């Protein structure tokens, strides 16, 4: 019943979005196709490129680990959103059914959604490869491995949050130790330590064990849900300390409507931990850079890479880091910036404040919080690896241009495709999220790639090109604010109330 309701809701949501925003939906579809084409071309190019002695091989275990980690992380987030943070579950929980029935329905819903989503992406990739005539080698058995990994990661994604809700500390620790061990075994297997005959049965066994584990946690589901429901009202010391510094973030001087919107968003995001989660992700990206450098050492010492290519390894990694931090910090925050109003949107909509003021206020907060973090993400590798000053400047300037452009895209798409559903963390469906991420990739390739190409010809000219990129980024921001405001203006009360 619950699974059916979830599936019908998802289907109607997609159909409603297509009906209300046909142009944007079609544009998003084509952006996905273009990005897939680009990705295939890059893979094809890399496969043909002979830049080490053995040539670059696409690493299947690494791909599997990444896929597994993404699905696992998503599964865990979904469990929190759709189970523990979902207020509407009060009704099903008060019905004469066991809580595990609800968990089972949510798990199956998540699994079906994942299979449809990743299956569609896989089929689209195959179709595009066929259309382009560029076949990238696909290892045999990848389909079976993919399905097993989907089931395993989704089941783990449900069991871990359930364990974390256990109130009995001893039982919680024991369960965590067991689940952690099984996760470790899974990761070791997936990352390619063993690919023998028993690989698939072992993966299947692990998946089944997690699926069977779920109903055994039946008694912990409702207490965990109740605890999570009361969580927003706890005041943590960190909140109070950071609250006092709100003025630094939202600006000083004369109070304007724009600044009030920024301050409101700042307090809400801070207190629902979203901002902390995003900042933490960016700090992790920084930590990975430092860790990578500690592990690999200076680029001059690379043994497996031709000397003429070795100097590009860290810049490439840095570019990837800036892109990822930018997507998290600006595009995704922007994407949820209007949806986060939820049913409370009536408040902003009934005040005498122009849509552009609201959208500008939201963009202002995203930039105020994200820009310093972005500059910090762009600094560790240039400093550690002793990159020349122009290269360091290039990355600092490029990180600013990407921040501006990604905020513009995020804020526009957030107003164009708002999702007022708290259980989805106010983000639009996954396809739209992917498309925005791909669109950002395309923009990053332009804003980083063109100045980088100029830099290969003349170092300082590359720096100037990166500075010009800030102008393009700012243009994208203004465009995002302008059209975001138009979209915000058009939102009708029946969409959120």
């Amino acid at each position, binding site marked *: 019943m619950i699974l059916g309701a979830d599936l019908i809701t998802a289907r109607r949501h997609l159909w409603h979005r297509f009906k209300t925003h046909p142009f944007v939906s079609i544009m998003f579809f084509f952006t996905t196709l273009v990005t897939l084409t680009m990705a295939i071309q890059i893979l094809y190019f890399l496969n043909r490129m002979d830049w080490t002695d053995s040539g670059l091989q696409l690493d299947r275990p690494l791909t599997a680990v990444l896929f597994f980690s993404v699905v696992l992380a998503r599964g865990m987030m979904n469990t929190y959103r759709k189970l523990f943070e979902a207020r509407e579950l009060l009704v099903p929980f008060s019905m004469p059914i066991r809580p595990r029935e609800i968990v089972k329905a949510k798990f199956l819903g998540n699994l079906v959604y994942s299979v449809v989503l990743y299956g569609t992406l896989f089929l689209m990739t195959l179709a595009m490869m066929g259309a382009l005539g560029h076949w990238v080698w696909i290892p045999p058995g990848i389909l079976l491995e993919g399905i097993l990994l989907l089931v395993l990661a989704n089941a783990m994604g449900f069991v871990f949050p359930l364990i974390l809700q256990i109130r009995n500390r001893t039982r919680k620790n024991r369960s965590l130790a067991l689940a952690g061990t099984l996760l470790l075994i899974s990761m070791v297997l997936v990352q390619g330590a063993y690919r023998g005959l028993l690989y698939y049965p072992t993966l299947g066994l692990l998946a089944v064990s997690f699926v069977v584990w779920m109903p055994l946690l039946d008694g912990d589901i409702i207490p965990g849900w109740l605890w999570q429901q009361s969580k927003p009202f706890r005041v943590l010391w960190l909140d109070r300390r950071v609250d006092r510094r709100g003025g630094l973030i939202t600006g000083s001087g004369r*109070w*304007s*409507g724009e600044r*009030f919107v920024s301050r409101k968003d700042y307090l809400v995001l801070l207190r629902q931990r979203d901002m902390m989660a995003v900042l933490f992700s960016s700090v992790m990206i920084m930590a990975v850079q430092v860790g990578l450098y500690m592990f690999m050492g200076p680029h001059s010492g690379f043994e497996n890479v031709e000397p003429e290519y070795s100097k590009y390894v860290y810049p490439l990694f840095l570019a990837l880091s800036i892109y990822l931090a930018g997507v998290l910090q600006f595009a995704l925050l922007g994407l949820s910036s209007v949806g986060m109003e939820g049913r409370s949107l009536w408040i902003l*909509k009934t*005040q*005498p404040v122009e849509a552009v003021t609201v959208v500008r206020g939201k963009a202002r907060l995203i930039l105020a919080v994200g820009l310093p973090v972005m500059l910090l993400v762009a600094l560790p590798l240039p400093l550690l690896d002793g990159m020349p000053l122009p290269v360091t400047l290039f990355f600092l300037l490029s990180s600013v241009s990407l921040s501006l452009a990604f905020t513009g895209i995020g804020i526009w798409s957030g107003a164009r495709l708002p999702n007022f559903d708290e259980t989805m963390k106010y983000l639009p469906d996954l396809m739209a999220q992917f498309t925005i991420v791909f669109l950002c990739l395309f923009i990053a390739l332009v804003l980083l790639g063109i100045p980088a190409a100029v830099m290969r010809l003349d170092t300082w000219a590359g720096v100037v090109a990166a500075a010009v990129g800030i102008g393009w980024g700012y243009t994208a921001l203004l465009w995002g604010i302008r059209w975001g405001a138009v979209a915000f203006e058009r939102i009708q009360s029946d969409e959120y109330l």
Partner: protein
Amino acid sequence: MGERKKAIEVSGLVKRYDDLVALGGVSLVVNRGEVFGLLGSNGAGKTTMIHVLTGILTPTEGTARVAGVDVVRDPLEVKRRIGYLPETPALYDRLTGMEYLQLIAGLRGMDPRSIDGRIGRFSENLDMTRHLHLRMGAYSKGMKQKISFMAAVFHRPDILFLDEPTSGLDPRYSEYMKDFIRGYSKKGGTVFLSTHYTSFAQNVCTRVAVIHRGGVVGRGTVEDMLAKSGTVDLAHAFIELTGGPIHTGDRG
């Protein structure tokens, strides 16, 4: 009737959702200083009407003017002149009551530091002073209603839109709400309230309209409505106008 006397003027208002007609050509006029009650059963179109008049929903057809301003052409100016209390106000759970009121003050171009003077009397009367620094997520339904009411009135609007204003309030505060509405109207303010509590409407409204399935099926002063239905209770007039009483079977 002089244009300057009209606070709200609605003409041929239609709101359609695909095949569903929420408002089917409603026309009405509310004068300045009036307490006008829009009565209707659940789903009759009362809230849709208020959403259109407050500028958060665009009508499919027809025109609506609030304080002499067209709600479609200049919704911002309309919003400057009005205060709005929704039926079930969804608030920012993570903000405190005071932060919320400061936000509203800021969005209305007022100095947030002046807020204490403006809300002091309301917060005392509504027993909200000690709750203003708590997060609104912890508020009861009645407290949410009270804080939303304060946010709707502290800027002293010309016209007040109240959607089921006593929803979630105990009898003591319901009485306070009635007194406030009467006093506000005496001072020249206009109140447009929507309710399905006929006794409340009978107590405070100078004129009422009954809306049923998106159309106005009756209107006039409370006395007119009572005279037409031949009863002393507005509830009976309402039941007659909205399809008569529902007869239950043996088991309800």
